[in-house]
């Protein structure tokens, strides 16, 4: 300890390059190389059914993609799905977080029950909803409708996209609840005391203290949820298989069908590039956030 270094940096440089290399290489091989290959395939005329007719096709796949009405349906469905699920989960999650941010009998248990759907495997969520809840004859929802004197609704055929939205919202409202509740609990008590002494009512208290405090947390919830909602697959796979027609075909499902049922590598790759672009619009915001956090950290 006597030989204290003059500069703040550690005496011996750690081999940072070697420490990071395995993780970097892994992501290069499993993410970046395939991504570059997707880009390459999207410029190729390549169908697995006709492996001999392969060749450079320029932007033909993109032209075909943009003139395919199903692609536009899928894009619209993806955006609708993301927007509705975001709206429902954030609003419901915030309301529930406020509700659970009080001390009451058995709060821990009630909260645990409420967040449980988040841990359910999406395939199982799809099956539970498809059969046991939404089945037009034997489903629980139909029984409730009938016992209240209404006609049961054929959810999956009459309101397919809404049904998928309900499933995803059931899984992800708990996520918003869990995160926002933690955010609420880090709210400094003295700020609330101060505005109460000033005679603020509940709405003013919420609007001027609680909501600004939650800003960053809300931002993270919206961003992470959009990334997951953009790639929803299992719920659709297990219930509607993208139908009826194209009613619940989103971008991931469209690419899956194109690659595994039409064997059209060129077209599906072009659509995959579209999905990457869409996700990256969301990602830009997250990167800004992470970078901002890094700067804050380096001032420690």
């Amino acid at each position: 300890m006597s030989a204290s270094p003059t500069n703040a940096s550690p005496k011996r440089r750690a081999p940072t390059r070697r420490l990071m290399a395995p993780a970097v290489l892994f992501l290069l091989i499993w993410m970046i190389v395939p991504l570059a290959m997707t880009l390459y395939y999207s410029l190729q005329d390549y169908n697995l059914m006709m492996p001999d007719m392969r060749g450079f096709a320029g932007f033909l796949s993109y032209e075909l993609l943009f003139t395919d009405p199903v692609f536009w349906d899928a894009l619209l469905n993806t955006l609708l799905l993301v927007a509705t699920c975001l709206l429902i989960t954030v609003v419901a999650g915030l309301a529930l977080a406020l509700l659970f941010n009080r001390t009451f009998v058995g709060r821990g248990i009630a909260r645990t029950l409420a967040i449980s759907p988040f841990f359910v495997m999406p395939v199982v969520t799809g099956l539970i909803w498809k059969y046991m809840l939404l089945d037009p004859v034997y489903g629980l929802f139909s029984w409730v409708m009938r016992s209240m004197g209404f006609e049961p609704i054929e959810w999956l055929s009459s309101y397919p996209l809404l049904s998928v939205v309900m499933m995803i919202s059931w899984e992800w409202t708990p996520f918003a609840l869990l995160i926002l509740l933690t955010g609420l609990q880090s709210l400094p008590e003295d700020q609330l005391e101060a505005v109460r002494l000033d005679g603020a009512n509940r709405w003013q208290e919420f609007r001027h203290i609680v909501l600004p405090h939650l800003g960053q947390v809300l931002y993270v919830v919206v961003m992470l949820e959009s990334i997951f909602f953009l790639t929803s697959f299992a719920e659709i796979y297990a219930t509607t298989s993208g139908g009826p027609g194209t009613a619940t075909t989103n971008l991931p499902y469209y690419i899956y069908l194109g690659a595994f049922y039409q064997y059209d590598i060129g077209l599906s790759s072009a659509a995959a590039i579209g999905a990457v672009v869409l996700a990256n619009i969301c990602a830009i915001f997250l990167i800004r956030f992470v970078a901002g956090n890094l700067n804050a950290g380096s001032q420690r």
Partner: protein
Amino acid sequence: MTASTVDKTPGRKSGAGGTALTLLAWLIGITMFFPILWVVLTALKTEQTAFSMTPTFIFSPTLESFKSALAQGSGYWHYALNSVITALGSTLVGLALAIPAAYAMAFYPSKRTDFTLVWMVSTKFIPAVGVLIPVFLVYRSLGLLDTRLGLTMLFTSMNLPIMVWMVYSYFRDIPVDIVEAASIDGASTAQTMFRVILPLALPGLASTGLLALILAWNESFWSLTMTDYHAATLAVYTASFKSGEGLFWARLSAASVMTIAPIVVLGWFAQRQMVRGLTFGAVK
């Protein structure tokens, strides 16, 4: 100021409306949980009671459906074993890759490590469908399709960005002085990492591992596209109930319960620890 004594959480004193809000919170908790409870109840029924237009809430429970879901030929154990191997395997590989990387980033920050960190996190936002086709074609030519190894690596790549970020954020809570002191005392990088830092960060590493385990267990996209039977996980097993077999509701429910129970229970215990990783450190 004197009135608020025991109340740990900020909130007004609960008056007459307090009881109503408490009831509402409980009602919502039970409603959210109800579909899960309903599957558990259905799994304990006979097929006849399970499949009826008027749901029965009171019945004599039977383990018949669990027996039939576990029976020879149903293959439950085969899929469960694959789920355990791929989820645990990807978590361990992920930790082995994430810890050294995060160590370099947290204790020896430079422009290059910062850039690498941001780049790693950004790969999380390449959607799986964006790499699906090349991964499928390459796996097919390398014979990695429908193998546990192939699937484990895909799970690892899916979780690695989040794991690096989580481990990094836990490491950053440890004062740099500790690393400097150890290094001055003559400890090598490996010694410092294993003897000094890892024990300090153990709770954080445990929550990182738990989160990765939960995400990998519930993963469905890669399992459904890359596996068929040999490496197929419980996601593929339950998905096979989506047509035809779905009519056996009690058996479907028993299979579902056995698929989700381990992770739901794990989630109950890990809920607090998971928050931080899920929010990229925005909430502590």
